[in-house]
């Protein structure tokens, strides 16, 4: 076991009815790393992520964040220290961009002036200036994701959870987002768990990659090691195909 582990999964099992989403999963996430979780849809990777902020509670085993067991603590307080970004963006349609981004400030009772200033700051960080007063319905898909990331950054949480944040964005915008996200991670050095089903994205962004299949961890490795020794047919097939395309 790794003493620097900020997030720790110990023999975690989760069932939904008869479906086993997590099957005896043990995993450490080190402070400051960007861990990418990859797998087919339905493989349990989103469930793994949602165990960290307590949106899903384990049936067996335990999940701890910073030494505290998730199921035993105050979930609302815990979640305010964890940034959360989802695929659709999850922006509240009746709030402006600035209101969306600063909603945690409002929940924490911050003064409006402070909220406004901090919202401007994080929006600038994600490359969005001058959109404060817009509503979600008026933004492009890429802009919505940036707002979602800005909202997660607002309280400067040590941990961020990202659930396929770029999956719904068109390919060109996605590449921009990935580049900026990589830069952001280098700059902020937050502990991040990033779920995707896109192997390319995983290889590009991850410090380490967890390959997930059928509720189990198949492989945990650096992108380099994964490329050289893929332990799953899922990854191996992807790599073969990319090599073939490269040869053509």
């Amino acid at each position: 076991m790794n003493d620097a582990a900020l997030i720790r999964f110990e023999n975690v099992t989760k069932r939904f009815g008869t479906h086993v989403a997590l099957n005896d999963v043990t995993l450490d996430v080190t402070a400051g790393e960007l861990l990418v979780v990859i797998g087919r849809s339905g493989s349990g990777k989103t469930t793994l992520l949602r165990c960290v902020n307590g949106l899903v509670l384990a049936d067996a085993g335990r999940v701890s964040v910073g030494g505290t067991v998730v199921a035993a603590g105050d979930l609302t307080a815990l979640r305010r220290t964890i940034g959360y970004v989802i695929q659709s963006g999850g922006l509240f349609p009746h709030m402006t961009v600035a209101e969306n981004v600063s909603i945690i400030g409002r929940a924490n009772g911050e003064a409006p002036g402070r909220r406004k200033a901090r919202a401007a700051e994080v929006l600038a960080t994600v490359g969005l200036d001058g959109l404060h007063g817009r509503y979600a319905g008026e933004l492009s898909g890429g802009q919505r994701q940036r707002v979602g990331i800005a909202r997660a950054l607002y309280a400067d949480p040590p941990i961020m959870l990202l659930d396929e944040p770029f999956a719904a964005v068109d390919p060109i915008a996605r590449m921009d987002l990935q580049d900026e996200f990589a830069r952001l991670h280098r700059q902020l050095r937050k502990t991040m768990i990033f779920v995707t089903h896109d192997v390319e994205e995983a290889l590009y962004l991850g410090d380490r990659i967890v390959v997930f299949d059928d509720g189990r961890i198949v492989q945990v490795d650096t992108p380099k090691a994964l490329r050289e020794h893929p332990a799953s047919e899922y990854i191996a097939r992807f790599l073969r195909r990319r090599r073939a395309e490269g040869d053509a």
Partner: protein
Amino acid sequence: MKLGVIVVTILAAAMLSISASASSPIVTIVIGSKQDTEGQILGEILAQFVEARTPYAVARKTNLGGTLLVFAALRSGAVDAYPEYTGTIDAAILHRQLPFPAIRSEMQRKYRIYVSNELGFNNTYVLAMRATQAKRLGVRSISDLTRYPGLRWGVTPEFMRRSDGLPGLERAYGLRAPNAVDVEKSLAYQALARGRIDVTDAYSTDGQLLRYGFVTLRDDRHFFPQYRALYLVRDDTLDAAPELHGVLQTLAGTIDDRTMTRLNAEVDVDRRSPSDVAASFLKQRFGVTRARPADTTATQLERALVRHVELTIVTVFFCTLIGVPLGVFAARRARAGHAVMKVVGTLQTIPSIALLALMIPLFGIGVLPAIVALVLYGLLPIVANTRAGLTQTPEDLLDAARGIGLSPGQVLTWVQVPIALPFILAGVRTSAVIAVGTATIAALIGAGGLGDFILTGLTLNDPNLLLLGAIPAALLAIVVDEIVYRLERFVRPRGLPPG
């Protein structure tokens, strides 16, 4: 915030004007009556006589919906006096047949209610025929009918089946009416006049009998129960207003069958108002001139309209105040929510008369019970829409709201309710339009409003009076719909798609 201030101000004004109109410094005698023509005339006769001959003030509740309501109102003290019939007291109040002195002592003993001396007439079932045919056949009493089994009977459905109707009549007189068919009352008179039927049932003092010139047959075997008119007065009222005795005594025995039939005809056939008819009767019989001129129709209409608007506003306010939290509760607890929806839905099915009758022991008569009833009827759309709106919050937004660390209360008030607001407001709008319509039942319990015109128009069979209430009510519904629609657009959160 601004909206809240406006609503509260309107509400306070409405409540103030309602309560102001209810208070008065001197002894006020509340005179009630049912909705029928005769009841209203008798109520007016007593009211105007008291106004002319005693120092007491009079308040009229002359449109109450049926024996059940008006007697409950009398018992609770919401009404001090109203006209009633011996037969009704037997059947609906004491539930047994008693001679007059026993009725009087029973009512005294059981309810502390004084039964006045009889007014003189007996409004019971009679059989009616065309005068020409009756004369030709020599039919004067019901016994005479046994000689003509071939006559065509057309009777009201009620009379056809009741034991004190046709079946009992056939037994008592050894009559046979093998051709009897049932006909609606209004059609029966026309059918009789045109010779399609020969015999029908009627009430002995029905003004329409004069209009058509029918003769009524003597009940020579005294089969039909007696419905002799009198006034019921609370003992408490007589103690506080002893001069009432003199008025009741003077009126006793002064209205015979012919007089009552004529007075009814003046309203039903000649289209005069019950209060005018009562006034001319009092003038003619006792030389009494009206102490207080009757309100003009315009004044009455204005008052009814204002009251209707007040009832609607107060009702919608409380429906929202109660309905939204109830809807929130129903949305958050699936099981209990189901039960709430069932209860609120069942409320809709309670007939208004029954609901109002239940209100009287708790809230008396007038504005308060009316509003309670209207609120119960108006809850469903708001509760249902609030529940539907909240349960339809997109899953990803709930996920985001919880995941970023909003407390359950914040998820509800910052995310779910604002997103559901268009639904909730649509429910309020439906409820408001329903309230304008159901507020007409308020008249049944003495709360006034446009229902006074509609109900009176219905009972007097007077389309003009009915439209005088119905048209403003319809216009009001349109206006209310438009106002709430604008309010809806005004408070709808920006950023949500237009509904």
